C-alpha cells in the first residue's frame, strides 16, 4: 500500500520513501501495466545521475569493488544506488542473488540503496529492465548508480550501452590471460581494473593490456581514427581498499573527458538510438503476449503449428494485423 495514485506514488519516490522506490523497481522489473505511466512520470526527473558499469569474470571481486566505490562516493556526500545482476538459470527460471553479501556494512546508511536483479533470460549481461531500473534510481535522486553485471564472455557487453563509464575488472592468475579474453570485453573498457593486484601475475596482466592497447592505437592511426582516451590501468586490492582513490580519480578524469570532448553526448545519443528500438520491441512483445498468447493460447498455437495444422508466419501476420487494428 504505497499511494492512491501513480502521481502520488511518484511524489513519494521523489520525497525519499524507500518502500515506494522499492515497489516501483519491482513494478518496472515485472513490466506491470502501471510501470509505463510510472516511468513516463519519473523520466523528467532523471538524467543527472552518473552511471558506472562494472563487468568482469565471476571471482574478480566486482561486488567488493562496488562496495568500496560506494564508500568512496559516500565519503564525498554523494548518494548511491547499486544494481547487482546475477544470472537466471535457463532450466529453472530461478536465481541466487548473492552480491549483497559483500555490501553489508551499508545497511544503516540511507544514502545507499542496493537492489539485486536476475537476468531473467537476457543474454547481454544485463536484465532487460535494468536500464529502466537505472532510470528509476536516477529519478529518485541518486547521484551515482553503480551497475555490476555478470560479465563472463563475449556477449556480455550490454553494459556499455547503458553506462557512462565502463570498468572491466581483471584478476591475475585466474586464467585471465588477456590474449585469451574474448574481443568484446576488452574493447568496451573505459578503465581497466586489475583487482587482487597483490597476487602474483599482476604485472603480466598489465603488460598484456598495454601491448594490446599499443597494437590497437597503431591500427587506428593507420585508419585515420584518433581516440582522445587511452583506458588507464588501475591496480586495486578491493578487500583492503587499496587503489580506490586512484580509481575514483580515473573515473572523474574520464567523465571530464566525456564532457569536454563531445564523446559523452554522442554516446548518449547512440545509446538512446539502440535503446529506443529495444523499448518498442519489449513493449510490443509484452502486449502481444498479454493480448494474444496468454491463458494457454501460446501452447495451443504451438501444438497446431507442430502438427503443421497452422502456419506460424500467417499467424504472426494475423496478430500484427490485429495490433494495427485491422
Amino acid at each position, binding site marked *: 500500500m504505497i499511494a492512491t495514485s501513480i502521481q502520488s506514488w511518484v511524489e513519494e519516490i521523489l520525497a525519499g520513501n524507500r518502500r515506494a522506490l522499492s515497489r516501483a523497481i519491482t513494478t518496472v522489473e515485472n513490466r506491470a501495466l502501471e510501470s509505463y505511466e510510472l516511468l513516463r512520470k519519473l523520466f523528467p526527473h532523471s538524467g543527472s545521475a552518473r552511471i558506472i558499469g562494472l563487468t568482469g569474470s565471476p571471482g574478480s571481486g566486482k561486488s567488493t569493488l562496488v562496495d568500496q566505490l560506494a564508500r568512496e562516493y559516500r565519503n564525498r556526500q554523494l548518494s548511491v544506488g547499486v544494481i547487482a545482476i546475477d544470472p537466471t538459470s535457463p532450466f529453472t*527460471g530461478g536465481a*541466487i542473488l548473492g552480491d549483497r553479501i559483500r555490501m553489508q556494512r551499508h545497511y544503516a546508511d540511507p544514502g545507499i540503496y542496493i537492489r539485486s536483479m536476475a537476468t531473467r533470460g537476457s543474454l547481454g549481461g544485463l536484465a532487460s529492465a535494468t536500464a529502466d531500473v537505472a532510470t528509476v534510481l536516477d529519478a529518485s535522486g541518486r547521484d551515482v548508480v553503480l551497475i555490476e553485471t555478470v560479465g563472463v564472455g563475449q556477449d556480455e557487453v550490454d553494459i556499455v550501452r547503458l553506462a557512462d563509464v565502463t570498468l572491466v575488472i581483471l584478476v591475475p592468475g585466474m586464467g585471465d590471460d588477456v590474449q585469451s579474453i574474448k574481443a568484446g570485453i576488452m574493447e568496451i573498457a573505459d578503465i581497466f581494473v586489475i583487482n587482487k593486484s597483490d597476487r602474483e601475475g599482476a604485472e603480466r596482466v598489465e603488460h598484456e593490456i598495454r601491448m594490446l592497447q599499443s597494437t590497437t592505437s597503431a591500427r587506428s592511426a593507420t585508419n585515420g581514427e584518433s581516440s582522445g582516451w587511452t583506458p588507464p590501468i588501475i591496480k586495486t586490492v578491493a578487500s583492503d581498499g587499496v587503489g580506490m582513490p586512484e580509481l575514483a580519480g580515473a573515473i572523474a578524469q574520464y567523465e571530464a573527458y566525456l564532457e569536454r570532448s563531445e564523446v559523452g553526448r554522442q554516446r548518449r545519443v547512440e545509446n538512446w538510438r539502440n535503446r529506443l528500438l529495444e523499448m518498442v520491441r519489449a513493449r510490443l512483445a509484452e502486449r502481444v503476449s498479454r493480448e494474444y498468447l496468454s491463458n494457454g493460447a501460446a501452447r495451443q498455437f504451438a501444438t497446431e503449428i507442430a502438427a503443421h495444422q497452422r502456419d506460424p508466419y500467417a499467424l504472426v501476420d494475423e496478430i500484427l494485423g490485429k495490433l494495427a487494428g485491422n
Partner: protein
Amino acid sequence: MHTTMPLEHKIRILVAKAGLDGHDRGAKVIACALRDAGMEVIYTGLRQTPEMVVEAAVQEDVDVIGLSILSGAHNAVVPQIMKLLKQNQAEDILMLVGGIIPDADRPGLRNMGVAGIFQPGTHTDDIVKFIRENVKPHSWATQ
C-alpha cells in the same frame, strides 16, 4: 539477440541467518532448492541483525523472508524483525522461520506473525509448496 522469459511474477525471497550461529549449510540447501523451484533468492548469509534483515527485505521488495536460526535466538530476533517490518509498512511479507525451533515455542512465533515454521527434516518441496500457496500478491495502491 535477447530471449525473454514469459512474463510472470517471480517470487523473491530473502534467505538470511540471524543470530550468531555459523552453520549455513541448511540455509544454502534451501536457497538452492528455491532457485530450482524458479524463485529469485537473495541470500545474505550469516550473522544478520534484525535491522539488516528488514533493510534488505525492503530494498529488495521481497515476497518472503526465510530466516534460519539454529542457535535458539528466535525468541529474541523474531519479535524485533516483526516490529521493524511493521515500522516499514512491510507486514505483507510472508515470514518463515526454519531451524531448531522447540515445539513449545511455535505458538508464540505464530502469534508474532510467523506464517510457517520448518523444523529439521522438512522436505524442501513442502517449503516450496507452502510459499506458493501463501505468498501474498503485491499491490501498490491503497484502496
